């Protein structure tokens, strides 16, 4: 019966009903389109970042600043900030591998370097990787020429974007087998490495930053970043390696924190390194067998909630000096920018929703005042608070649900229109956000359900105050004049 009264009342005050339906419909359409786009963009970001170079989770050494795979996320600090080496890397690696949610694990060394190629010079981020685990971890990486870096070999891989730029600038194409120079000038001296280009690759949905990335073997990256080298790997610097030592061998032992062992052209014996270790001039917590790493990168199995897992993992990391961060943090500034856009969008939407609720409350209040006599009559014939409350909530939630469904219909129509226009996007930021270079929005069933749920919540929230007012109506209003 309540349902009958509620439903017929909607038609009785059809003008108010229509206004409320319209308001909720617009809010829901906005919410639906907006979040469909955001969901799309999240998927876009996922392919851009997670599958290309961040993974889902990155384990790094605890620092005071927010740190991405490129270093500090704060640009001002970035230049002087060196990424700390991860302590207990093997233990943590084993610990992470024990989680059943983890699909693949790899490790990485990162640091900025100067790339000299032909006559060209660029500042680049260098990722030192373990090829055996790295490429399986990042299916977004596609080989365009040459081959993937192999385990134990020294070499570099450049992006297609980089290669094309060099060709454009110099007229000389970069080919597999060419040598490139990578150099760093840090507090511990000037390091330079010559490595061959073994392959040219591209990222799917590339944005600017990934185009800059140079992938090298771990040892080269360690050398550039003054990180301890592996000792028992089959790695040996090829003859072509050029080492420029800023200090002579004596000062090497005096200079605290100096760890330029790798810069010696001769191979280093285990005994020598042990001596070094005992004299305490080296960071001692590193993993000797494998050399130091900056990051452990995890890709999670499909369907695993990354924020839940992150919490779980960080609890396990409690005893270590390491912490895990999500891919958003790991991706660095461009991803943060995209996330900021998302937050702004949601904040804007929230404001619209609040304004909408206020408008709806007003209309519902008017409706309640117009129905003083009816509500008074119900009271006079014995309706309880609960009955009146239920009646008004039912009415408004019916309106809201209808409006919600219409909102989704409207949203879908608008999406069709937008897709039909085939707008293309030149901005790489937005295209990386969308995951395509053309605006194409996929309908989302989940979002549709969420939208109807939101409309019901809206109906409920905006009814609370009008219901409060309706409950104050006295039965004597049934006989009040006017």
């Amino acid at each position, binding site marked *: 019966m309540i349902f*009958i*009264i509620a439903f017929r009342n909607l038609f009785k005050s059809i003008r108010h009903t229509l206004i409320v339906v319209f308001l909720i419909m617009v809010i829901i359409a906005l919410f639906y389109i907006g979040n469909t786009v955001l969901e799309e963009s999240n998927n876009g970001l996922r392919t851009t970042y997670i599958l290309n170079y961040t993974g889902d989770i990155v384990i790094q050494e605890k620092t005071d600043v927010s740190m991405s795979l490129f270093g500090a996320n704060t640009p001002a600090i970035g230049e002087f900030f060196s990424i700390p080496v991860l302590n207990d890397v093997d233990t943590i690696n084993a610990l992470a591998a024990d989680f059943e949610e983890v699909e693949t694990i790899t490790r990485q060394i990162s640091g900025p370097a100067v790339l000299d190629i032909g006559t060209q010079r660029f500042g680049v981020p260098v990722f030192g990787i373990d090829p055996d685990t790295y490429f399986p971890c990042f299916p977004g990486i596609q080989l365009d020429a040459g081959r993937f870096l192999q385990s134990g070999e020294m070499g570099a891989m450049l992006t297609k974007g980089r290669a094309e730029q060099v060709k454009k600038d110099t007229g000389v194409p970069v080919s597999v087998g060419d040598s490139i120079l990578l150099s760093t000038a840090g507090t511990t001296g000037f390091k330079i490495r010559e490595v061959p280009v073994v392959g040219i690759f591209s990222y799917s949905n590339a944005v600017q930053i990934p185009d800059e990335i140079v992938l090298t073997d771990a040892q080269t990256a360690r050398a550039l970043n003054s990180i301890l080298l592996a000792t028992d790997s089959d790695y040996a610097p090829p003859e072509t390696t050029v080492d420029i030592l800023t200090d002579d061998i004596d000062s090497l032992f005096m200079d605290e924190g100096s760890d330029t062992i790798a810069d010696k052209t001769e191979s280093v014996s285990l005994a020598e390194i042990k001596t070094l270790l005992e004299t305490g001039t080296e960071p001692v917590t590193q993993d000797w067998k494998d050399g130091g790493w900056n990051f452990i990168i995890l890709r999670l199995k499909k369907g695993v909630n990354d924020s839940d897992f992150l919490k779980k993992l960080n609890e396990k990391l409690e005893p270590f000096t390491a912490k895990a961060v999500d891919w958003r943090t790991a991706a660095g500034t461009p991803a943060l920018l995209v996330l900021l856009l998302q937050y702004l969008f949601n904040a804007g939407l929230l404001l619209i929703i609040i304004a909408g609720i206020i408008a709806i409350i007003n209309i519902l209040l008017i409706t309640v005042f117009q129905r003083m006599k009816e509500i008074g009559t119900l009271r006079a*014939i014995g*309706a309880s*608070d609960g009955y009146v409350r239920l009646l008004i909530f039912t009415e408004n939630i019916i309106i809201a649900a209808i409006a919600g469904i219409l909102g989704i219909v409207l949203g879908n129509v608008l999406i069709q229109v937008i897709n039909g226009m085939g707008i293309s996007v030149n901005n790489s930021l937005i295209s990386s956000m969308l995951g395509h270079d053309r605006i194409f929005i996929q309908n989302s069933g989940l979002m549709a359900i969420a939208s109807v749920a939101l409309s019901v919540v809206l109906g409920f929230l905006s009814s609370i105050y009008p219901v409060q007012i309706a409950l104050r109506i006295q039965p004597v209003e049934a006989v009040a004049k006017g």
Partner: protein
Amino acid sequence: MSIIQLDTIIKTYHMGKVEVPALRGISLTLVKGDFVAIAGPSGSGKTTILNIIGLIDKPTSGSIVIADKNVTNMKKAGLTRMRQKELGFIFQSFNLISVLNVFENVELPLIIGKAEQTKAERRDWVNYLIEEVGLADRKKHKPAELSGGQQQRVAIARALSTKPQIVIADEPTANLDSATGETILNLMKKINKEQNTTFVFSTHDPVIHELADHVIFLKDGNIVRERKQAKEVKK
């Protein structure tokens, strides 16, 4: 056996700073099965006293006992239950729920009061009431499709649906022509006789109050005269 007992009921309305005395100390006792008319000129307090008996308004002071329950200080929920179970109300301007048809209007108090009946019992009872008030062929009509007399019959059936002990009617015939008014009164009287339901109604029409067994005359918020059956009692 008294069913309604009012003791020195005073009701004062406040219109801004002005106090309007509507009832100045009314005491009365009504017995079960009574068919009572409250008579008096306009503004004498008829509506006010019926609202107080019907528990849709509260007196400024004085005590009320209805169906052996002292309701003077009863809380909102208790009063609501009394209105559901013990009282029926017939309004001067009918007050039917416009979106509900005749059947649904009569059924409504049973649903509101969660009456302990099966659906079939309820349907039969509502149909019976509608037949009693002579609207069997109008069950599916909305109030707007009925004449004033027909709407008031629906209101009577609605007031009776919960089988209340007391039915209050404030000038039930005021919006009707006199012939229709008389049939409505006769209908009320018939139910009063058949079911021993106590009726308290107001009227300013001498022809109508002649039909009552018990007439209470009000003037300026006081009872000036009371007449039971044919015998008149001076106050």
